[in-house]
């Protein structure tokens, strides 16, 4: 026993498991913590949009034509920044920019997170099952993934927006479209991991003990790809948010008057020399939330990845 106790198993990567150690490790990383805080702030702002904009009695829809000059440009400093309009107002309409940014967070997060969840669900299901069961099912599914990869997604999405009936809610449409096109990458990653996990002895052991295929796939294999899934999810959210913003920027996203960062940025472009703050506020918001998710994703990867010691 004495000897055995001194042995650290050869070749085993020490893997931190469980929620608390991961949390502790994330919290130990100031960057990841900052990212998490920013995300929490944005989520809170999105959820509490109404009371938050209620502080100054604003909403993102009401016109304030009195704050605009004759040609539609905001009056006053920084695009009309004042006690009532913290970020100034929108040109041509005089709507409160702070409210637009805060409510814009709603759409961005809603679309970003929902589309990610959809993608991850499909991707994980397909990835785990194809990797684990293999055979003709895997071959067909892999072809489908090929097809999905072959699709110029942005191109197709732009094209699709032209044909969706106007009665169909646009945010839901965007979630579906972004989500349904987003899964192949995660499915490939998961499949790759499952393929190697499938060869691991504990999986064979579980089968040898008489566990059924699905049971093995979901109780033995899935928990081992969970780290990958979590990291991937965190990194996918910002890219989905970016997708939504890009579509809105290109003019095929969420329709007005629903506030959206991407659309506001697209509109602000023309005004940038007259009212630069109109571009700055939504731009910074979009950048910050994306950055926060990426930084947190990095932190999580470090915390969860057995090969993690990257710093």
């Amino acid at each position: 026993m004495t000897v055995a106790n001194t042995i650290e198993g050869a070749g085993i990567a020490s893997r931190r498991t469980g929620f608390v150690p991961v949390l502790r490790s994330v919290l130990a990383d100031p960057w990841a913590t900052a990212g998490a805080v920013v995300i929490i702030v944005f989520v809170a702002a999105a959820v509490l949009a109404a009371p938050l904009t209620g502080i100054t009695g604003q909403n993102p829809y009401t016109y304030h034509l009195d704050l605009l000059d004759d040609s539609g440009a905001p009056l006053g400093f920084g695009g009309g920044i004042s006690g009532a309009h913290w970020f100034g107002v929108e040109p041509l309409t005089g709507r409160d920019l702070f409210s637009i940014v805060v409510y814009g967070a709603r759409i961005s997060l809603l679309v970003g997170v929902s589309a990610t969840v959809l993608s991850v669900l499909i991707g994980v299901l397909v990835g785990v099952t194809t990797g684990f069961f293999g055979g003709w099912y895997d071959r067909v599914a892999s072809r489908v993934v090929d097809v999905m990869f072959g699709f110029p997604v942005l191109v197709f999405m732009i094209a699709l927006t032209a044909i969706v009936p106007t009665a169909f809610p646009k945010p839901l449409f965007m979630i579906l479209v972004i989500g349904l096109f987003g899964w192949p990458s995660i499915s490939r990653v998961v499949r790759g991991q499952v393929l190697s996990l499938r060869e691991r002895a504990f999986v064979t052991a579980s089968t040898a003990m008489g566990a059924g295929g699905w049971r093995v796939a979901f109780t033995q294999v899935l928990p081992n790809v969970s780290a990958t899934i979590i990291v991937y999810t965190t990194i996918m959210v910002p890219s989905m948010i970016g997708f939504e913003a890009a579509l809105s920027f290109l003019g095929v996203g969420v329709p007005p008057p629903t506030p959206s960062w991407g659309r506001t940025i697209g509109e602000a472009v023309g005004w940038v020399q007259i009212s630069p703050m109109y571009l700055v506020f939504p731009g910074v918001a979009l950048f910050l939330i994306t950055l926060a998710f990426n930084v947190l994703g990095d932190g999580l990867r470090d915390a969860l990845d057995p090969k993690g010691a990257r710093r």
Partner: protein
Amino acid sequence: MTIGPVEPVLSAKAVQIAFADSTAGAARTVVDGVGFDLYPGRVLALVGESGSGKSVTAMSVLGLLPPTARVTGSIRLRGQELVGAPAGRLREVRGGVVGTIFQEPMSAFDPVYTIEWQLAEALTAHGGRRSRAQLRRRVRELLRTAGIRDVDRVAASHPHELSGGQLQRAMIAMAISGDPAVLIADEPTTALDVTVQAGILELIRRLGNERQMAVLLITHDMGVVADLADDVVVMRQGAVVERADARTLFARPQAAYTRELLAAVPRLDAPDAADARRAADAAPEPVVAVRDASIVYGRGGWARRPVRAVADATFRIDPGRTFGLVGESGSGKSTLGRALAGLVDVATGSVVVGGVDLATASRRELRRVRRGIGYVFQDPASSLNPRGTVGRAIAEPLRLHSDLGPQQRRARVAELLDAVALPSAFAQRYPHELSGGQRQRVAIARAIALHPVLLIADEPTSALDVSVQAQVLRLFVDLQRELGFASLFISHDLAVVREVAHDVAVMQAGRIVEAGPARQLLAHPVQPYTRRLLAAAPVADPDAQQVRREAWRQLAGDAETAA
């Protein structure tokens, strides 16, 4: 052969190595006060359990430790200090004066280049400018020296296209390419089959003698030490516990640890223990009956050629008996093991376990059969789900096949942990919090949870240190005596098989070439292959090993002329 008092080529004194630790603030000392001398034409073996600091010590000679390591003390090569030497000087030494052979030949070669390219690179690194043709010639010459036969094909191959033995020979060719005075061999044969190992050891010995190289051999295998070493340094937890010439060490080990180490080595020539506990014959109903079974991989797929992993295997295992399966890597041992658990289908023939023919069994029947099978794998690192606790792992079969409540399950887990001599508190631990030996005990506990009638053990100890291996084997034997299960015990180590198995079958290229009662077969092998296999396995006794070596040379020579 040694002529008078010679100067050591390389001399290490009071070497201390510490790693900067990222978690703890202070540096962690892993080697402390190690010293040794290397003489031309002599082999110094550095032995000790895993993690004792052997590799680190060897790498410090070449300055190949990561930047987080701090080396103090003195390492002199032909009088020149290497510790703290400038990078340029170290580079001249590496591959020039000191050649190196690593443990894993497959990963030690860069996968994307041909062997020729990599050898040529080593040559140009020191030998100055040479023409293409000269390089070509020299590479082939070196490969031939390293005992490679189809030199041209090997030279043009990428690492993945070669066998471990070929790669290790190529590695040796590379190591001697700069005509080194010192050869460092870090576990040069651990990843290889015994038969291949014997050849490699032979090669190192020959080269050491011919070129008057000083060899620093790192190994944990006492058989290898006995075979090759002139002097031995035993290390434990970073410190030297004993230093002696090989003969003395084996004959009269001084340190308690050395004695413990030697005692743990299973011996082919040990007095027969298995025989004593042999149960009376005439068991009517075999647990396993395999008849003319052939197993083919890759059937039906149109992309690759099918591989016939097992051909016409026939054997039976009676209750309470251990059936040992030995053979080279790739000979089909694991495949047969898998077939018994119904994890692979037989192409022809039949596999009957517990009276059920697995080929025709329904799902229900298969489940019932599996209920009665325990499985233990070679690699303790991968046989437990890293995401589940030990308790969960052991309870898994209970959850699958019994209707015990959580309370009862917990109780049973504690019972099982006790049976494999682990504290019941271990149930809460995760696999990575356990040592290799402990993990293997957990795997065994899981395998016996449902009182199996058959336990399949696929190289359960080959990843473990000898001392740990001894403990696990003892546990295995005890449990079998207690629970009376039949067992298929797969191993490439003949001595281990001899220690635990009642019957043995020897496999070669998918065929069982010889089978019979363990003692008889291992003592009087009939088939030349079995004999070669037996002769190739080194024993931990320099004198005995010298005799065996001669015998092996004979047999190998025969095989070569026959081939």
